[in-house]
């Protein structure tokens, strides 16, 4: 038995880290001035393709690499449609979501019906490699050791990606150029920045990051395919909201993930908290559980409203977001 506080903190991270992948990936794309609503579909494709490749080669590295490439290809498609062909970004993103989720079910159903069936995770090396890593001494610290320092490698990778992306935006020249494109592609173009190349590269990398998040969700679900419930389960959509929550900053995305994760976990754990601490938290049980189910979304709504009301709240928003750049348009 793990005590309820530790489990609470542990679950915030374990179940919500995919949001960080989705959010940082989307931030990278939006910083280039493109709004990609296809996060859900991109994650689904990365998840299913990466998982299958990982199961085939029995390696977590291959799984990550392939899901990055698969989702990157989806990003390439998005770039081709919106950057080269100037298609409407919203419609293209929505199409990718429909396509990606349908692709997930299509592959999953086809494989499950096949003779060999859907590849199992339990007992494989892939499973072993995605399990929590025990760090000597650090993982043994009470509460914090279990909650923060007993995770699988993909959890740490997600945080690292967010930190590096923050540094990339703030401290490097390509990061600066990217932000310039997001603010005013015409100005960046006139300074000799290759707008099309920058957009392509960052949309592909951002999509690839999302794919690893999708793979994480699949591995976290024990790699079982269910015909009625997609692994991604709406997390792609929440990620898009979290981008605004984080004010387009990868560092704040970590915070946003944790805050959203807190309420997301509270919806499951409220009864356990009330049960363990009847005197101080007993009142939690009196609130209908459906309220807790709605809470993460109520919080998201409140944040969206407040950030829209204050100018500071949206200071990180790229000015040219959602509009295609076409040099001859000027």
């Amino acid at each position, binding site marked *: *038995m793990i005590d309820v506080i530790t489990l609470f903190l542990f679950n915030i991270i374990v*179940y919500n880290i995919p949001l960080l992948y989705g959010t940082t990936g989307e931030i990278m794309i939006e910083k280039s001035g493109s709004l990609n609503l296809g996060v859900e579909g991109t994650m689904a494709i990365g998840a299913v393709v990466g998982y299958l490749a990982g199961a085939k080669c029995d390696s977590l590295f291959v799984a990550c690499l392939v899901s990055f490439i698969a989702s990157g290809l989806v990003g390439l498609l998005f770039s081709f449609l919106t950057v080269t062909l100037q298609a409407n970004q919203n419609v293209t993103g929505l199409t990718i979501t429909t396509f990606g989720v*349908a692709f997930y079910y299509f592959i999953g159903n086809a494989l499950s019906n096949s003779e060999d069936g859907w590849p199992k995770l339990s007992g494989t090396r892939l499973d072993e490699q995605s399990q929590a890593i025990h760090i000597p001494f650090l993982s043994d610290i009470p509460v914090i050791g279990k909650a923060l320092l007993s995770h699988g490698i993909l959890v740490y990778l997600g945080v690292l990606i967010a930190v590096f992306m923050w540094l990339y935006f703030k401290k490097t020249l390509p990061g600066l150029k990217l932000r310039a494109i997001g603010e005013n592609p015409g100005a960046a173009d006139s300074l000799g920045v290759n707008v099309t190349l920058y957009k392509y590269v960052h949309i592909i990398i951002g999509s690839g990051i999302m794919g690893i998040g999708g793979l994480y969700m699949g591995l976290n679900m024990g790699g*079982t395919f*269910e015909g009625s419930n997609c692994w991604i389960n709406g997390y792609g959509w929440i990620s898009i909201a979290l981008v605004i929550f984080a004010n387009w900053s990868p560092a704040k995305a970590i915070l946003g993930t944790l805050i959203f994760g807190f309420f997301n976990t509270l919806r499951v754990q409220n*009864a356990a908290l009330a*049960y363990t601490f009847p005197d101080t938290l007993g009142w939690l049980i009196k609130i209908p*559980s459906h309220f807790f189910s709605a809470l993460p979304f109520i919080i998201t709504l409140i944040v969206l409203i407040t950030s829209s009301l204050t100018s500071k709240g949206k200071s990180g928003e790229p000015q040219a977001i959602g509009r295609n750049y076409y040099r001859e348009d000027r």
Partner: protein
Amino acid sequence: MKKLISMLVTAALAVTSLFALAGCNAAKGNEGGNGASDFKVGAIYINSQNDTSGYTYAHHHGITEAMKKVGLDPSKDLFIVDNVPEDDEKVKQAIDQLAGNGCNIIFGISFGYINAMEEKAKEYPDIIFSHATGYLSNDKNFNNYFGRIYQARYLAGIAAGYKSLALGNNNIGYVSAWGTEYAETCSGINGFALGVLAVNPDAKISVYEISTWGDQELERQAAETLIDTYGCCVIAQHCDSAQPQIVANEKGVFGCGYNSDMTKEAPNAHLAAPIWNWDAYYATAMKAAMTNPDTFMTEVGNYYEGLNAGLVDVSALSSNCEPQTKEAIELAKKMMIAGEWDVFSGVKLSFSGDAGSVTVEKTNAPLVTNDGTEIVAAGGASVDDGVIQGSMNYYVAGVTQVN
């Protein structure tokens, strides 16, 4: 030109994804009846006919198996409209389509199809309409069907009870889609709990309600909470995926799945799962409709069978079960099949003895809810109506909902 190409590519993507989503939405086997049989079966599914587990899968499997039993060919004589949401207009369209295909009997598997099916039964008096889990019917061509799955849950409860005795841990967990809102989930929880209590009278059954039929992540977290916070040693479930069993397997405790033998998902944890054999009903219904559709309502009528008809059962006991389990389950099963005892009655079973000499004892005891209300007096008959008509909305003593 660029715009045109992009529009075409986007449209192509949209169309392919639509096809993938819809699966084989269109009815198959359009070549129609051959000389061998003119009888055609129609089915309306809530999910895809290609599902590999879960509710729609169980019914699709039942229908195809039953068709083979009564000499029909599912590839020719079965017409399906799948992915039909619980929306009256959509259901009516599906029925019209199946009627146009010449179906003689139409099965609708989801509760919310109820009103559309009742209405269309009047419009097509020559077609038999058969609706799962509903409560409406007429005396000519419209019936409903469901089963006493609580009997199978009672049997799974026996397996869980023995496990808890052996482990010396009285806490049993139950991840449930819904609680007392639906008689289906409620009677399942109560049936399971009474099975556990028949073996281990000190057991406490903690129910975690996830408020949705299927959400893998919630199912997983609910099971974790039940194990880590409430110290449960067996996790039973009434939800779509196998996640609760997988969690039990990871955490080294035990579990009872649902709908299919989940030993393959949780080899070290799974004990036995209550399962449906829908083909038992479908074969009965098809046979009656093929022989004489006019007497369908008198021959079959509203169908509500259990262990006796083979409609429900427990999956093969896994090697994780305690040695006494098999005998105890056989004893209880025999009584229910013979109709001499049922779960929600004023008679309580208690099992004792070691493997090889398990005995069952009947004692008169009232059926009491967990807040002390008496539902059935000691020695009284089982509350059939409560389950069939959906009025059961209480937990029996020993059950607590944790959230």
